[in-house]
């Protein structure tokens, strides 16, 4: 195995930005500390990418890091576009919303995108679907203020009915009826995954949908090839492949969800292409309140075959 494909190590972007978990204030990051992490894993690819980043008095230049992150997220949006992520999320979210409505909840619904980055998913939903006009509030939440500023700038530029806030998605101010995320859940490892999923257990929450890479033998190779061709920054090329390696298996996600959020019936959605053995690039951990179960399959319609067992 290549050193940069070791799933026990973090991604570069996990380490080059740090925030105080309580105040959300940006904290300085020592370049050498990050280099030391990857030196331990003999990951020279990560070290080369890091060495190219400028620092002052040993501290990574925050402005340069923000520019890099925005560049990477613009590139990552392309990945979402190529994989038609927007239509996939819309299909699943609209079925969940219809099930919630069918159960009798007619009030406003807030969809919260956790770790929204520059907000591609929500901006796409706001621009291309009638969700907002059907009374859904689309809110993206991220810990990175630069990405949130960019998400709001892009949203304003196209006058989209969605907003993005810097903060904790599970705080009382931002909590929602439906939580979703894209490419976020593999960042939570071990007990942190269980803790993350347990935070969905709030009285107002009806459902969650977490989209992430689906691990397979071929996924790292496919991801490597795709990132070499499509991504332009070293950090994106490194982290993109490592994400595919670090992605959680369906069993891990389902097990964690069922133990951490027992009020929800959880399972996987969209694992195989056309019910063949071919895996989709992304799979989805879905959890819904048990009272929604009878309505859910009906509202997924012809896509119901993509739903795994929810329990």
């Amino acid at each position, binding site marked *: 195995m290549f050193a940069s494909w070791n799933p026990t190590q973090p991604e570069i972007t996990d380490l080059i930005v740090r925030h105080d978990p309580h105040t959300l204030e940006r904290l300085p990051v020592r370049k050498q500390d990050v280099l030391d992490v990857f030196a331990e894993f003999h990951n020279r690819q990560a070290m080369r990418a890091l060495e190219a980043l400028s620092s002052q008095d040993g501290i990574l230049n925050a*402005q340069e890091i923000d*520019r890099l992150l925005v560049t990477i997220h*613009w590139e990552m949006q392309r990945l979402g576009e190529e*994989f038609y992520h927007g239509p996939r999320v819309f299909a699943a979210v609209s079925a969940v919303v219809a099930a919630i409505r069918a159960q009798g909840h007619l009030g406003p619904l807030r969809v919260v995108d956790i770790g929204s980055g520059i907000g591609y998913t929500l*901006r796409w939903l706001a621009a291309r679907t009638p969700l907002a006009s059907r009374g859904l509030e689309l809110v993206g939440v991220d810990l990175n203020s630069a990405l949130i500023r960019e998400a709001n700038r892009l949203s304003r*530029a*196209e006058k989209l009915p969605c907003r993005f806030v810097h903060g904790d998605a599970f705080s009382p101010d931002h909590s929602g009826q439906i939580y979703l995320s894209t490419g976020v859940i593999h960042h939570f490892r071990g007990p942190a995954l269980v803790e993350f999923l347990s935070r969905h257990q709030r009285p107002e929450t009806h459902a969650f949908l977490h989209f992430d890479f689906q691990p397979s033998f071929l996924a790292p190779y496919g991801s490597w090839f795709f990132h070499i*061709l*499509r991504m332009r920054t070293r950090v994106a090329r490194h982290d993109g492949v490592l994400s595919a390696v670090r992605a959680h298996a369906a069993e891990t996600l389902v097990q964690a969800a069922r133990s951490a959020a027992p009020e929800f019936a959880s399972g996987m959605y969209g694992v195989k292409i056309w019910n063949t053995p071919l895996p989709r690039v992304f799979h989805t951990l879905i959890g819904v309140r048990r009272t929604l179960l009878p309505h859910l399959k009906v509202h997924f319609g012809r896509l119901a075959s993509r739903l795994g067992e929810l329990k």
Partner: protein
Amino acid sequence: MTLLALYLLALLDGLLCGGRVSMGRCALIHKRVYYLRALVSGLLGAQIISTIALIALFAVGVLSPHRAELRADLEAAAGRMMWIFLPYAAAVLGSLALRLIPSTDLRSATSVVALGPLTAVRSPIMITGVVYGIAPSHLPETRLLGLFVLALMLSLEYFLNYFAAKRQVAEIRQLI
């Protein structure tokens, strides 16, 4: 006729290069105008290199002591190149045409299994096509012209990418 077909293929290549270098550099949702501009700039780039190639062709033609032989040799080389370039162009256009089918899985699959690999082999295909075309040529002028056009074709995406990257860096610097 063969030279005209090569010219049209060069324009198509420029068009697609323009689109490719623009991807991942604009995060808006509605990007029709952005992509249209990118395609036009790719087309213009291809037109510029085609014009340079045409000037070189005429210059060599004027200076050559055996004009008629050169013309026949060039046409034969261009004809051989078409055996490589036409199937490649057909594969690219066929993959793009598949994306007209309204299936998210099928569209994604074309990206992963067709357009990605076809992009990856663009440079090797160009080198193979030109070398296959000029290798059996009798005249050194044909070979030199072939290599010159190859260098122009390979530089097109590099320059388009270079300018797109400069624009992107400037735009992000304005934001942050």
